[in-house]
């Protein structure tokens, strides 16, 4: 079996084109931040960004840098470092289209695409304004039980899933560990791009213990090595968040000028590195 091999980061990101439906993982599942900065440097535009099921710095950066047309997620927040300022400004300033969801609805939408079904049912939601403002979600009377109402969510089939993981091998297999939603993202998406901390010497599928946490290369279109590629976010079990940097971001991104300064210092600056 031959896989995609690795590429320089910019080249690996080629499948992520302007206007594409891009799915990214939540803030503690291995966020491809090095890739995100590279996309901003490239000037990607009009993304339909699905953050599964929430986001923090990644969505805020992409929104602030003008890369996002539509955002579909359950929440964007910097957590302990406060609200996500560019996200909030984009909503109140009406510069992006927001599709508010709730976490399990996004998981269900991706799992529907993973299973090749047009929709998945979900409990909850009835009577909420989350449901009220989603005219792409339907309510039916469940044909099982007492005809109680239940929501059907359409499948979310991304053009590209973008993930960051601890390691990959030369066959294109990517070790994702416990973050099984990364596999669902890859199954659901047409293409998958992965950045990894390092290359594994050997076949991840050959060892039963490693294989259990491996996304097969069959689903992966390109891979780039990006050491500390989730920085300043954490890669659980490997490194913690850079709290100091996140606090700095929260402070700078509070104003458009401060955000521009952040981009210059931490995103564009890297272009020449």
């Amino acid at each position, binding site marked *: 079996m031959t896989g995609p091999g690795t590429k320089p980061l910019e080249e690996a990101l080629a499948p992520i084109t302007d206007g594409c439906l891009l799915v990214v*993982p*939540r803030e*503690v*599942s291995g966020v491809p931040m090095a890739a995100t900065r590279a996309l901003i440097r490239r000037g990607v535009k009009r993304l339909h960004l699905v953050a*599964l*099921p*929430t986001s923090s710095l990644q969505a805020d950066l992409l929104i602030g840098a003008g890369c996002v047309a539509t955002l579909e*997620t*359950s*929440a*964007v*927040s910097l*957590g*302990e470092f406060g*609200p*996500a300022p560019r*996200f*909030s400004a984009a*909503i*109140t300033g*009406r510069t992006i289209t927001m599709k*508010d*969801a*709730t*976490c*399990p*609805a996004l*998981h269900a939408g991706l*799992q529907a695409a993973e299973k090749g079904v047009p929709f998945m049912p*979900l*409990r*909850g*939601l*009835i*009577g*909420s*304004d*989350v*449901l*009220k*403002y989603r005219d792409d979600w339907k309510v039916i009377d469940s044909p099982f*039980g*007492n*005809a*109680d*109402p*239940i929501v059907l969510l359409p499948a979310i089939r991304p053009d590209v899933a973008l993930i960051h993981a601890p390691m990959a091998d030369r066959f294109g297999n990517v070790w994702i560990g*416990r*973050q*099984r*939603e*990364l*596999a*669902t993202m890859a199954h659901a998406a047409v293409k998958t791009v992965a950045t990894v901390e390092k290359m594994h010497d050997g076949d991840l599928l050959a060892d039963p213990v490693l294989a259990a946490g491996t996304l097969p290369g069959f689903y992966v279109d390109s891979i780039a090595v990006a050491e500390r590629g989730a920085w300043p976010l954490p890669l*659980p*079990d490997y490194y*913690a968040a850079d*709290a100091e940097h996140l606090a700095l971001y929260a402070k700078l991104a509070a104003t458009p000028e401060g955000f521009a300064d952040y981009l210059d210092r931490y995103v564009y600056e890297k272009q020449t590195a």
Partner: protein
Amino acid sequence: MAGASPAMTNGGFRPEELLADVIARLIGDVRHVAVGNASPIPATAALLARERNGNGRPYVSLLQSRKHNFFTDGARELFDCAGQGRIDVFFLSGGQIDGQGNINLVEIGDHGHPKVRFPGSFGSAYLYYVVPKVILFRTEHSRRTLVPKVDFISAPGMSADNVFRPGGPIALVTNRCVFSFANGRFTLQSVHPGHTVDEVIEHTGFDFARPATVPETPAPSAEALRLMRAVVAPQLAEVYPQFAKQVFGVGMPA
């Protein structure tokens, strides 16, 4: 906590410790407590409830933690687990909470032209329906946060009879008091030391029931304080480093 709160009350405990103690009692005797994002006081309470029992029960899942979280099926497992009826207690907050128990985690103002945007509904529009004991939690108790009617319903406090809903709110804990919730209405249960019923009425935007005499929220026991400070705080530091440092003076484990 509201900016004006003292760092330490006369009883020798911090307001966060009182709230965590209150919540630990509300958790009661259950099998599994899960704590979502950005909820350091509920996390303290859940870990306190577990350490108090001394038998590893209830299971405590801190969503953003690796250590305090047994999930191995990805970010969806929390929600699947709740759907299975395997999460007994969860915590939710709201930019606004109204007297019918509706919570708003989305926006202030008109939809489409909001004045203020909050992070978003997270899992509330699901978990509020399926987790038997949802404890609402808001440290800013004001007419700005506790309103007659929320501007956006992230999740409703009650549902029609034909809606599948094994779960819902059982209480609201604020920096001033504890309300219980039943039959679509809040009832004032106790007022925290240093606060008064009149003050609660003044700062609450919705109507609520109250008994003729409202007790004072009991102070945490010496044992509860010891457990929080010595046993719980170091565990919190992994997920809530800022909070653990600020409230308990505890840093990240090496």
